[in-house]
């Protein structure tokens, strides 16, 4: 494959004794140690509010750790930010309402100081199933369509590190299945290091090479499951025994992490 001058090499990600405490005193993360291999896809799974999104923001350099450090390719996140080496799709699609779908995707290239590539944008718009909506403004799109536009925006700069915070939250089931087949193919072809936050165990197993399971707040790692399933992984794989076994491992780790107040409430 010919070298692509636009893309950034996939970096490894290291979190070393990483902690985060918010100003009002809430402990969100405590002593997280993690090494994510370059070019692989990792899913973060955990109960709501456990700190998965905060961990993603710490990796993106959007939050400052209270303790420990993050390294992307051996350098702090600020270095990666400076050369636009990462992109993030947020929980909220965060599309600028005065720009069309295409305009929002082009904006990412502008921010990353990369030239606009009409064909690449068209391809991405088609990939996320928004063909024909490229000149439409976000207000006229459904929640799922906005989220897909946000995914396309995050991918257009061909970042070495792609961070996705619950990217399929508002996407309908059929599109979700299609994206779950198409996106990993693209990440693999581009050898992108991808980190995905999700609530869905099935989605985590389907999309990733490794699933990290977090406990309730303050988040600590309670499970680390390698997903050694072949790719591509069509939707029909979910009923395969090996898929089910991996999903069960993740679910059990999740249940361990959630033990505590929930159990007491259930007992009541």
């Amino acid at each position, binding site marked *: 494959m010919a070298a692509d001058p636009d893309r950034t090499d996939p970096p490894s990600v290291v979190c070393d004794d990483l902690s985060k405490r918010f100003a009002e005193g809430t402990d969100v993360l405590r002593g997280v140690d993690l090494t994510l291999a370059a070019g692989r896809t990792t899913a973060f799974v955990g109960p709501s509010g456990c700190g998965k999104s905060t961990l993603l923001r710490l990796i993106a350099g959007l939050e400052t750790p209270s303790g420990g450090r993050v390294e992307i390719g051996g350098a702090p996140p*600020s270095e990666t930010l400076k050369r*636009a080496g990462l992109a*993030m799709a947020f929980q909220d699609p965060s599309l*600028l309402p005065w720009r069309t779908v295409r305009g929002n995707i082009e*904006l990412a290239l502008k921010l990353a100081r990369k030239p606009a590539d009409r064909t690449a944008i068209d391809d991405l718009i088609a990939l996320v199933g928004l063909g024909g909506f490229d000149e439409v403004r976000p207000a006229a799109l459904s929640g799922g369509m906005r989220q897909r536009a946000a995914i396309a925006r995050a991918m257009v700069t061909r970042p070495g590190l792609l961070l996705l915070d619950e990217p399929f939250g508002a996407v309908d089931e059929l599109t979700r299945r299609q994206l779950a087949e198409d996106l990993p193919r693209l990440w693999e072809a581009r050898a992108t290091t991808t980190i995905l936050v999700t609530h869905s165990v099935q989605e985590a197993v389907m999309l990733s090479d490794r699933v990290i399971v977090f406990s309730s707040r303050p988040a600590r790692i309670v499970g680390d499951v390698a997903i050694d399933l072949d790719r591509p992984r069509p939707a029909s794989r979910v009923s395969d025994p090996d898929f089910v076994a991996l999903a069960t491992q993740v679910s059990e780790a999740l249940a361990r992490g959630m033990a505590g107040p929930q159990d007491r409430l259930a007992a009541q």
Partner: protein
Amino acid sequence: MTGQRRGAGLLGIAAMMVLWEGVGRAFEGAFLIAGPSDILVYLGANLGLMVRALGETLGNAALGFVAGNLAAIALAVLAQLWPPSRSSVSGLALIVFCLPLVATGPILRILYGPGPGPQITLAALAVYYTTLVPLLVGLRAAPASWFDLVRSYGRGPLTELVHVRAWATLPYLFAGLQIAAPAAFLGAMVGEFTGAERGMGVLTIRAIRALDVDATWTIATIAALVSILAYSGLGAIARRVLLEKPAVILSAPVSTGRRRGPWHAAARLALLLGLTIGLWWAALELADLPSFFAKRPDDVWRAFVTAPDASATRATMASALAGTALFVVPGYLAGLALGAALAILFLLVPAAAAVGMPVAVALRSVPIVTTAPLLVLALGRGATGTITLVAVMVFFPTFVACLHGLRQAPGQILDVFDTYAAGRLARLVHVHVPAMLPAFFAAARMAVPASILAVTVVEWLATGRGVGALMALSASLSDYDMLWGAVVVVSGLSILGYAAISAVERRILSVYAAEQLGA
């Protein structure tokens, strides 16, 4: 539906014209009201004069509008890009907004001499704050995730400004410009009161002095129409340009300084005071203006504190202020109460709101210098006329703000009330009125300087009493110590009133709208 509404609107206007004409005829000879036919006759006879005067005032207002808005935009951007300047920019803006135009007008006339300088400057000063406040809010109004997006590509505040804030603030900018357009007209007219040769302000003064009812009503009608057209025209442009309606920003958000403790607030106040005095002194020194009429801060201090006749000067000022307070306080409170009460009534009777809201929004844009002579003609030069005028000045912004606030009640909370089959009164008391409070207090804060402007204008133009008259008299007698002192005292009282309302507001919002204090 739109056609029906337009038809009803035209019918309403026609009915109002007939009623106006009828009242005009009924009071013919009483020197009170000129009907539409009188105005048309007067216009026919004096068309050339009116067109020339309107052209002059519009030209000055337009120049002031551009200058004031450019200054507001520049300062808002400075405050955004250099956060330590934010509190000084907001504070100085408030001080400028609180300057009594009635006194700054004559001072500018002395400083500029003949020509359009004072008119343009007063127009610029009148629009500066109304644009700056929405901009300061709008530049920070975008969701945090939009800024995260920019930061996730390693870009900084300037990129945020270009790609996010500048666009996100457009609805706020248009909201400010809509209010600024009539304000510029008001500023230009007040500037013309101070000895200009041409313009609508000059004609107003002449008409009042000659008790020319037809001329007064014609000028008032033209000024009101121009203001409404400017307001509506900018609204129409906003609807074409924007994806959403212009924002409704009633005043600067209430300060959050309290949370950092009283020492921080005191230090900020001292800095602001020092900056104001420094700028005042430096501006006059740099312009090398003679201290006979361009009084420095130490001149005012001497006149009011250390001079042998300082106590007499203070007594004169105190007596004038007491006279003004008698009118301004009841008018202010009545305007607030009526504004809130009518808004609540309109909420309970939605059909009334459909008719009343556009009228109130339009009338809100009519400058005080237009309505003052009419109310004085109708109600006389005594307490009733002055209090009514102050109340009218406070009423319209309060009413529009409260109606907007009442509509901010969260739909989901109202749904909760619906699930319990709660009545209209319960919804009003528990949801709508608390939702209205932030807007009510924002209007109450802004109404403090507005009511002082109203009372000083009417005292200057008509009653000959109070601090407005003292300022006019000081200007005509070249008593510049008193004139500059009046600017300091009236601005100071205006700011104190504003701060007092802010303190009450903070207390109430901490209970009913805590999220507004966290902004």
